């Protein structure tokens, strides 16, 4: 039990980094980490010792995050000009604008991109963590990267391929 406790502690920095990138602010991120650790510790008996503890905890965090999104829709932007995203101007954006662009991605794309690019998980592990098929991981990853590239290049996202009747 003591050893498990230490292994869980060792996952904390990475859970925090992922939550920070996912939610876009440190207060929400730490709330999410706290909920994840509490739920993980309460259900530690359900974790198979031969499994990957980190992937299991990230799965718990994913479920909590989805619950949070369902419960409270994202807040409307305050009408403070300084906070409004810059209109696409054709100018490339700097690193500090990456975070804002990241928050403009649909949450499902953002999760896959962060698990692959930041957390450096294998695609199969991302599929298991998020409980989605591998093909869905790859298509979300591809769309997230292209979406982000266009945002960072100051271009509008590619038109979605909705069929309008």
């Amino acid at each position: 039990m003591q050893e498990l406790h230490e292994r869980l502690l060792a996952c904390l920095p990475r859970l925090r980094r992922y939550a920070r990138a996912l939610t876009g602010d440190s207060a929400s991120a730490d709330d999410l980490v706290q909920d994840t650790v509490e739920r993980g510790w309460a259900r530690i008996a359900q974790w198979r010792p031969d499994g990957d503890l980190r992937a299991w905890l990230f799965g718990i965090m994913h479920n909590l995050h989805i619950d949070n999104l369902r419960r409270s829709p994202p807040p409307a932007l305050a009408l403070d000009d300084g906070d409004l995203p810059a209109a696409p101007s054709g100018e490339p954006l700097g690193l500090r604008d990456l975070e804002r662009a990241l928050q403009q991605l649909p949450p499902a794309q953002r999760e896959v991109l962060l698990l692959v690019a930041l957390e450096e998980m294998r695609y199969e592990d991302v599929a298991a963590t998020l409980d989605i098929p591998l093909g869905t991981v790859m298509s979300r990853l591809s769309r997230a990267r292209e979406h982000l590239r266009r945002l960072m290049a100051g271009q509008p996202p590619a038109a979605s391929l909705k069929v309008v009747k």
Partner: protein
Amino acid sequence: MNETELQAWVDGRLPPDRLAAVERYLADHPAEAARLQAYREQNAALHALFDDVLDARIPAPLHPPSPARPGQANAPAWSVAAWRRMAAMLAVAVGAGVIGGAAGWTLRGAGTDGAAGVMASGASQALAALPRQAAIAHAVYTPEVKHPVEVGADQQQHLVAWLSKRLGKQLRPPQLANQGYELVGGRLLPGDSGPVAQFMYADAGGQRLTLFVSSGQKQNRDTGFRFAQEGNVGVFYWIDGSFGYALSAAVGKKELSQIANAVYEQLQPN
């Protein structure tokens, strides 16, 4: 070429037997190559943006409830011993493979209570950040074909004067011809504690290495060579006075250590 393989190329997860075919395809399709290069830069930029969180101290409310330990009823969840263990784990997680000295140094720093411990811990975090920043800068700029440097080696005098002025120190890029590397040029980068100079070298086969010179390392004491592995990039780094140096390349540790020795010798004042 299917998109899954292209994505795997971005993440360095392509099976080795497919690498040549994908790279041939990219050589023939510059627009695709530029798109995938942008994705690689996204990966590096996301690390640059968020990896600081790995270094940050964990607020107490986030710790999991302490498990019951025989003979230690009501043990505080975050004892000094736990903090030492955490510091050791952080050193491993932060350095992502920092071996030897750095972990021991962090442990010594965290083992002291009070202000001295906090200061040592801050300095060790800055030290641990050096190889990662160098590796990120290496990963971002070495793949550049057209603009790997801001000022090329053909304007060496200007390059040296400019970077020396910005870093407040007379810099001399080491000559690494004996090691098979020629200076390509250099660029100026922002760092946590001030401007950073990056010198880039290439060998005849196009293998690139970078020397990262960071100013404002006052809080650190001098160190010997440390080695960190960041993905496929090996980094030798050391502190000398108020400057931090990091030599990065995707070559073996032994080869890199020989080059690092040559760099170190040439940086010593005569």
